């Protein structure tokens, strides 16, 4: 290994390394899209098969918390975008503050989600744990809630990972910044926005079927 280089030997320059890292994140996001894609396909199969049940089930979801969470998450994405921008203009302290804000909003999202889950537990809407929904639509409603829990838990797991990554970066950037950390922040921001976009789809699929079009 050529000594004294700030970057690994497979790269020709620090810039080369950073661009490569970013491409890696895009490929990772492609993989993630297919991960959620399989789930969404299953959702549509059953929504097509049991349209009335999905409407009935969707009406039992908490649109207030759902909408609030959408606003929280979009705002956090905005803060992350601002943080990337701030670091590019070398406003390191501002960047760290913005990241802290994004982390706080991400945690708020998780907190609200937990309240939502607790309410659903009280309303006995958790398939396999405690589920009680009367009437002829019960089966389709149960299928809806299986998706609801798998999809939102998978999304929440992504949120937790994102919070961890942003937190680690904020701690590093508090000390100092370099091009490598700038790229890392850029990639982390891509990931955070992706998780945000997934939520926008989930929001429409989960909360809106019973409430749109009368």
């Amino acid at each position, binding site marked *: 290994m050529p000594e004294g280089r700030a970057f*690994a*030997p*497979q790269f020709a320059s620090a810039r080369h390394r950073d661009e*490569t890292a970013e491409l*890696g994140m895009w490929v990772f996001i492609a993989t993630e899209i*297919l*991960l959620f894609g399989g789930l969404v396909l299953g959702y549509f*199969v059953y929504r097509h098969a049991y349209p009335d049940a999905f409407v009935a089930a969707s009406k039992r979801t908490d649109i207030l918390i759902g909408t609030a969470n959408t606003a929280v998450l979009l705002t956090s994405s905005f803060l992350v975008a601002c943080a990337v921008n701030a670091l590019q203009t070398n406003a390191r302290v501002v960047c760290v503050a913005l990241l802290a804000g994004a982390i706080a909003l991400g945690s708020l999202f998780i907190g609200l989600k937990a309240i939502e889950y607790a309410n659903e537990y009280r309303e006995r809407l958790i398939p396999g744990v405690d589920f009680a929904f009367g009437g002829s639509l019960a089966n389709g409603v*149960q299928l809806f809630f299986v998706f609801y829990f798998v999809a939102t838990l998978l999304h929440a797991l992504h949120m937790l990972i994102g919070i961890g990554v942003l937190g680690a970066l904020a701690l590093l950037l508090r000390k100092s910044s370099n091009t490598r950390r700038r790229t890392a922040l850029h990639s982390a921001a891509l990931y955070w926005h992706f998780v945000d976009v997934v939520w926008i789809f989930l929001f429409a699929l989960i909360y809106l079927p019973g409430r749109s079009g009368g």
Partner: protein
Amino acid sequence: MSEADYLNCSYTLRSWFFTTDHKRIAILFFASLTAFFFIGGAAATLIRIELATPQADLVSSDGYNRLFTMHGVIMVWFFLIPSIPNTLGNFIVPLMIGARDLAFPRLNLASWYLFMLGGCVTLFAIFAGGIDTGWTFYTPFSTLYSNSYVLVAVSGVFIVGFSSILTGLNFIVTIHRLRAPGLTWNRLPLFIWSLYATSVILVLATPVLAVTLVLLAAERLLGVGIFDPRIGGDPLLFQHLFWFYSHPAVYIMILPGMGVINELISCFSRKEVFGYKFVAWASLAIAALGFLVWGHHMFVSGQSLLASLVFSFMSFMVAVPSAIKVFNWTATLHKGSIRFDAPMLYALGFIGLFTVGGLTGLFLACLAYDVHATDTYFVVAHFHYIMVGGMVTAYFGGLHYWWPKITGRLYSEGWARAAAILIFFGFNLTFFPQFVLGAEGMPRRYHVYPPEFQVWNVLSSGGATILAAAYLLPLFYLGYSLFFGARAPANPWNAPGLEWQTTSPPPEFNFVTQPVVTRGPYQYSADFEPEPQNA
């Protein structure tokens, strides 16, 4: 030999288990995969012994279910899918493109650890009692009825999937970003093209398997889920999702083999691969079409006739790029200066076996014939021709071809040729009778069968004995060469590829000076004799 290379630069355990050198990680994968190959092979051996007689004499029905499941799970996820990409690919890709490592060396090491973790979890499931669902984990049997270690095995496969994804991601980024100056896409060796196509499948198909297994696990854990027919769920949805991964996975298993064959055919006939661009794009075409044919595993599942027609048509379409490859390999041989060294024997064997496997695939793509052949030994024979006759043969061919580069040692050419020939004949004797058995209606996954099928089964089991011996042979002569083989020159085949321009074995960071590429990959001189060393 005082020069430092990647093998002798350090001997500590730490320098192996925490290495980020793609070459050492390839060796780690190679050792682990060899172990899994022989574990899966042991299961196959027991299966063939049981099937030598029509009665059940070795294992119970339940034991037999667990045996073929173990064979399938181990061979598919812990040998075939990672075989060429994670060993030869890991070792050769950076060398071939003139890079000092993969783009993400630590991710590469993580891939091995995930592989080992998934492997240990799966082995635990097997030795704790086994799984009886078949490698396909079909619902509702796997979720509601099976009393075996489904959850543990599914977790193992789930984990190893992430190893696949990380390797695929690493290859895609590496091939895009780390090519040597002058190495344009149209100068890339075809091995790289095929691994690129493979990586695209790894990255796009594997996550679908992951989420499907999550749904399966949730259903088995909680007793209610989306494949559960008791609440209106559709077990067939599982098959759709499973085959959306597992059919492309077939191409994960064959494309790298095709890539190896390009290198071998070209080298041992001293000619440029005929129709380079067609072969390169055929790999991508196979990868793309591979995503659109999963329904041909479900012709008898009750899917709509229209869906079956479309899937049948698309399956026939896959034959086009596959045939382009076979025709171009034979055209490459035409008027070449052919030498029958061991790697070439494997390559020629591959062409024959892959062609038989591919053509019988067309039988199965026919709606009418597939109804007859579904779940018979015809299907078993077909996919073994592709995966064992094709992929494993290519794996051995590539292993011999690059062995001098990987280890810095030469192997015994005589033994290697003997093994190659033995594998070819042993393979055909094992699996050709299974076409006949399948056509006559013997179903797969049964260990008791009518006496009139015994002749073909005995032939098959006899062939398996030869095949087993032939697969064990390289263990000995390659193992011997590792310690006592003659030192290999840098370029024993006088090949133009970049991987041959550095020493054997390569130094820790592959190239002392950054290579620059000015020509295509297959500019062979007619002269086979290696240039004299130390000239």
